[in-house]
């Protein structure tokens, strides 16, 4: 497999349907999320070390990886729980700063949300994943002035006050 110098042409692969499940610990107030491929998303409370995780919400969602159609390189995106459109709600937010950089173009900043919503562990979406997502979502844009910028959620100032629009099927599971 030759990947050096490849001008990647990404396509979605390993598309998985399931639920984005969000849990919170009432002890430390951190939040986590994970992707469940179970037919019914788990809602049970459980203890994990010092944490007491409780179910907060779940939404139908999908996960995917990216694969280059030219060199077959695959970029796994298991850590991406969902994407979110930045609504520029807080000038002190790192995502707001990115969205304000390119005023001449129609730039839309999307945040790749990782599982570790509160970033207590310091981990987030990988640089390789962010790079591939940017290339994938920009490769077919018809308007030359339009630009999609995908950034990791570690840039976000606060999960509690963020007004971003999460690309998940909010409310669909409440029908059942």
């Amino acid at each position, binding site marked *: 497999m030759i990947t050096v110098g490849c001008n990647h042409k990404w396509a979605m692969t390993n598309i998985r349907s399931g639920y984005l499940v969000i849990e919170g610990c009432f002890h430390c107030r951190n939040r986590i999320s994970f992707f469940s491929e179970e037919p019914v998303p788990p809602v049970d409370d459980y203890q994990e070390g010092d944490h007491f995780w409780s179910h907060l919400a779940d939404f139908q*969602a999908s996960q995917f990886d990216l694969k280059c159609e030219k060199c077959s390189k695959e970029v796994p995106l298991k850590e991406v729980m969902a994407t979110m459109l930045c609504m520029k709600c807080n000038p002190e937010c790192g995502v707001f700063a990115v969205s304000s950089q390119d005023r001449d173009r129609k730039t839309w900043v999307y945040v790749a949300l990782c599982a570790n919503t509160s970033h207590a562990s310091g981990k987030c979406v990988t640089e390789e994943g962010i790079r591939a997502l940017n290339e994938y979502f920009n490769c*077919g*844009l*018809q*308007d030359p002035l*339009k630009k999609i910028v995908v950034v990791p959620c570690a840039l976000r100032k606060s999960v509690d006050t963020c007004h971003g*629009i999460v*690309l*998940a099927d*909010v409310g669909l599971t409440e029908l059942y």
Partner: protein
Amino acid sequence: MKVSELVEKAGLKAFNEQSDKDIQGVYISDMVSDIIGMKEGNLLVTLQTHKNLIAAANLVDVAAIVFSRGKTPAEDVIALANKVGIALLGFDGDTWTLAKKLCALGVG
């Protein structure tokens, strides 16, 4: 086919005015988690009228969105569509009737 031509030929209602994009194909879905896999330039036909859908449609660069069964988007949804430059259209009949009409017009 251009969006404006489709509006006229299929008898669609326009909820806003946006640039007249070329329609490359048609995608029918009511799930945000599904439409993020769409190809660019498609006409999205849906029943959903919430803001999440507009955010997803912008990410995949749709030509326009058609709400079937007479669904009407709220003002804040139209405002977001205007901001990202997506034309919102309406069709009074059901999705299957619209799909047949689009096929007959050679769209997609």
